[in-house]
């Protein structure tokens, strides 16, 4: 009875698999020996250089190796604890928003609260990380911390915090460098202070975890059984959670964001045969330490001279996407998420009239954002000559923002139809980040790509991301959870590519930062025309495909029985949606969530019929983005806020509210 409870997942019984562990161990030792043998040496005369070499060895190389082991172990332990306490195989500092919350807090304190200089970085990082995870858990509380809901809440909180960090970085100009590197998690050390501060924390964490082993075991059961065994459930969960957040926030404060290691370590532990809670708790830190150590040795070995190939944290982040995909079959949502989210009874008797009213409201918004603007004397309405003077600057960006919003509305509508899932949208499914990966590759290949090349590569990236997401989700029967998790995985992978280039800190990273901040400020005639033409060309066919759009949400088998060519129709619609996303992402950056909220608002207003729903979604998307654009240029005039931020600040909470709602059908 006192034995450990088995993990709730399919597994092979038998002897632990020693082979992967042995291979990993050998790889670590070999690469470290290679690193020692091939490490760069200081040039110059023999006597002083020997002393310097010794300093480099003892105060840079060895503490770096130690910090890789310690940080990896801490993250591995934190990931294992989080996964157990949340009963969620994809919980980790990255997916729960802990890392990005900590980053935002540190960026903020560095920029705006220099008075806080006395307070330690760890404390600030902990506050940020804990704040983020508290928001994530609060948002998914009503669904019983269902893994899928937690993952989505985590992704949205990460998106918003990352965008706020980017805004702050851009606002601060030259100071940004430290944040770039730090955000990408570089392990360089100049003495043992990092090790000295992190090692006791890891030790304390291990001791605490050992003491919590019994309740951890019990937690693997469901809540009622755990309670009957006499565990003070909430208290235990809360203290384990605090411990895990504290561990990962300490790592973030010391060496920056090390992406997805908390996800990788327990997975490796299981691969090496860890089965019981005790085994996982012991093996995960070891696996984490091994992976990070190996990654760090490799990036030093492969980098030229003294410099690294890529920041270690960015390299491990590349593991995140594939790992999430690997772990997908293990994730069991507690409650299926189906298209019941906003099945309101409200319906217009005369939708045409209602649509005209909506169009009229849209026209009012257009008039307002065109005329109302800040000047040095405060907000004023520009009419007459002043209006015609300012029009060439206002109109293109309003058209670009509105056009992008409309495209996103249509893309979100299409994706929700194709997948039969109410929370599908360009941002959630990783399609926007796919565009970012495309942009990154274009910047890498062409240096300074032309707008046409940028657009094309972003379109290819978006399309690729969406097709991969659909393919993965389709293989597992297209369930809503699979789809969203696949989207999150793709998104993580694409953003890892982006952040690797961001960490280079050159002109390419500036171009990427500008894109990530999603500003319509640069919109000129080209952007405005791109928005308008693609809006017409890409959305018009949708109105001719209403049959597909009506049938596909009913599911694959039903659609097929009605006589629909499921694969073809999905492919065509996916290409359209991917292109629409790419263009909007080109115009306003990766973040907005307008594609999510517009179709929902349309339905909530009462546009239930397909064509009206689509038209209303387009109008609402455009209106939302135009208002967001207006806010972005008014709030801190003459400085400007990324346009997607406001839409995300509205859209994020809405999505989470949608997820948190108790299902009517249940």
């Amino acid at each position, binding site marked *: 009875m006192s034995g450990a409870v088995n993990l709730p997942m399919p597994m092979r019984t038998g002897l632990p698999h020693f082979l992967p562990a042995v291979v990993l161990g050998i790889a670590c030792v070999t690469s470290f020996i290679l690193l020692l043998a091939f490490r760069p040496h200081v*040039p110059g005369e023999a006597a002083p250089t020997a002393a310097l070499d010794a300093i480099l060895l003892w105060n840079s190389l060895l503490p770096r190796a130690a910090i890789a082991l310690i940080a990896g172990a801490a993250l591995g332990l934190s990931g294992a604890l989080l996964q157990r306490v949340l009963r969620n195989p994809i919980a980790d500092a990255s997916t729960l928003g802990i890392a990005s919350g900590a980053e935002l807090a540190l960026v903020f304190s560095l920029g705006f609260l220099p008075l806080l200089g006395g307070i330690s970085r760890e404390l600030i990082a902990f506050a940020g990380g804990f704040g983020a995870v508290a928001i994530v858990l609060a948002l998914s509380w009503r669904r019983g911390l269902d893994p899928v809901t937690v993952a989505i809440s985590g992704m949205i909180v990460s998106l918003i915090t990352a965008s706020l960090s980017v805004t702050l970085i851009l606002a601060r100009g030259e100071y940004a*460098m430290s944040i770039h590197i730090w955000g990408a998690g570089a392990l360089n050390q*100049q*003495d043992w202070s990092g090790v000295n501060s992190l090692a006791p924390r890891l030790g304390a964490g291990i001791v605490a975890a050992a003491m919590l082993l019994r309740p951890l075991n019990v937690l693997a059961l469901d809540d009622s059984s755990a309670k009957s065994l006499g565990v003070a459930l909430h208290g235990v969960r809360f203290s384990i959670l605090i411990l895990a957040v504290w561990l990962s926030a300490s790592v973030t404060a010391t060496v920056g964001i090390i992406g997805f290691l908390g996800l990788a370590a327990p997975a490796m532990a299981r691969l090496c045969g860890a089965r019981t809670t005790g085994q996982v708790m012991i093996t995960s830190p070891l696996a984490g330490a091994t992976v990070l150590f190996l990654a760090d040795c490799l990036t030093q070995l492969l980098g030229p001279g*003294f410099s690294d190939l890529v920041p270690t944290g960015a390299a491990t982040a590349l593991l995140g996407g594939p790992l999430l995909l690997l772990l997908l079959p293990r994730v069991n949502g507690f409650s299926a998420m189906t298209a019941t989210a906003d099945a309101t009874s409200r319906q217009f008797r005369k939708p045409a009239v209602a649509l005209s009213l909506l169009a009229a409201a849209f026209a009012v918004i257009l008039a307002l954002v065109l005329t109302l603007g800040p000047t040095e004397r405060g907000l004023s309405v520009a009419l007459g000559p002043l209006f015609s003077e300012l029009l060439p600057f206002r109109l293109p960006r309003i058209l670009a923002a509105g056009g992008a919003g409309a495209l996103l509305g249509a893309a979100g509508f299409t994706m929700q139809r194709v997948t039969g899932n109410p929370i599908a949208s360009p941002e959630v499914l990783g399609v926007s980040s796919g565009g970012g990966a495309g942009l990154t590759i274009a910047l890498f290949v062409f240096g300074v790509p032309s707008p046409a090349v940028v657009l094309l590569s972003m379109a290819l990236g978006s399309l690729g991301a969406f097709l991969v997401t659909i393919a993965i989700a389709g293989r597992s029967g297209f369930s809503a959870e699979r789809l969203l998790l696949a989207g999150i995985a793709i998104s993580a992978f694409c953003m890892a590519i982006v952040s690797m280039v961001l960490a280079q800190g050159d002109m390419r990273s500036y171009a990427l930062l500008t894109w990530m901040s999603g500003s319509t400020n*640069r919109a000129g005639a080209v952007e405005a025309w791109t928005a308008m033409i693609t809006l017409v060309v890409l959305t018009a066919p949708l109105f001719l495909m209403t049959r597909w759009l009506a049938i596909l949400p009913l599911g694959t088998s039903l659609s097929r029985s009605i006589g629909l060519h499921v694969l073809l129709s999905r492919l065509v619609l996916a290409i359209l949606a991917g292109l629409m996303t790419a263009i909007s992402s080109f115009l306003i950056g990766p973040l907005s969530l307008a594609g999510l909220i517009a179709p929902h608002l349309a339905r909530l207003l009462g546009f239930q019929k397909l064509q009206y729903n689509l038209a209303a979604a387009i109008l609402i998307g455009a209106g939302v983005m135009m208002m967001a654009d207006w806010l972005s240029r008014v709030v801190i005039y003459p400085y400007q806020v990324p346009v997607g931020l406001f839409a995300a600040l509205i859209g994020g909470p809405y999505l989470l509210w949608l997820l948190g709602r108790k299902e009517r059908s249940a």
Partner: protein
Amino acid sequence: MSRVHRFSRRAILSAAAASAAARVLRAQDAGPRIATLDWALLETLLAIGANVVAATELRQFRQVAVKPDVPQGVADLGLRGTPNFEALRLARPDLIFNSNFYAWADPLMNRIAPVESHPIYKPGESPYILAEQATLAIGERLRLPAARRLVEDLADRLDRYKNLFAKGDGRPLLPINLGDARHYRVFGSDSLFGEVLKRMGLANAWAGATSYSAMAPMGIETLASMPEAWIVLIPPHPEDAFAALTESVFWKALPAVRENRVLTVGSINPYGALPAASRFADFLAEGFSYVRSG
């Protein structure tokens, strides 16, 4: 009552007209109203006495570039990456100077006023020579003789410093900018600071060229690979990073630190033009004369 009222109004109107006329006159005296997005051009324009009416990120400029002073009346256009074109329009410039860095904004700004572009940072070209050319071209365009004086004064001063440094220890210099406690940017031979060193007869410890004038980011351990050099720290850098670095064992063990060969100068805009070059040269001359006397 009504007469008084009318009188006062007339008085106000005439006073307003007079002051407007005075402003026009002054504006004519001051030359055309100039705006720019680029910080290197901004400091050049301010240094030669152009009538700058709008520029970007002035809050940050006052902290990073420090000199020349930006007059209070200059309109802030917001971030360099996202300049506010409406604010630029409302500043009513007669002429806009731009650099290749912000070339994307040319078509938009052309609607406001003619745009003239002067590159200072181009891959493979000397920023010092380009900065000289830009200064002279702008001076000619605005008929400001101060431009030629700026170029010649600086060239003379660098020559003088060259004689001064010839009596120095002959060690190379490593001009760097701290990012955090573990990373720095180095300014290579093709950077503005690298050019200034060359003109003052000083060797740059960073042998290689660097892309776009600064290579970012280098791990701090690379400092050990240049034991001979003076380390010249160029702010702005995060204070906590500076404190953490200078307390570390590694830093204290560096030959440059042990032998007191570290010089921290004042804050300089690393992507500046001649005023930044002049600031850098003056700081070095001042620092080393202090070192020699102290």
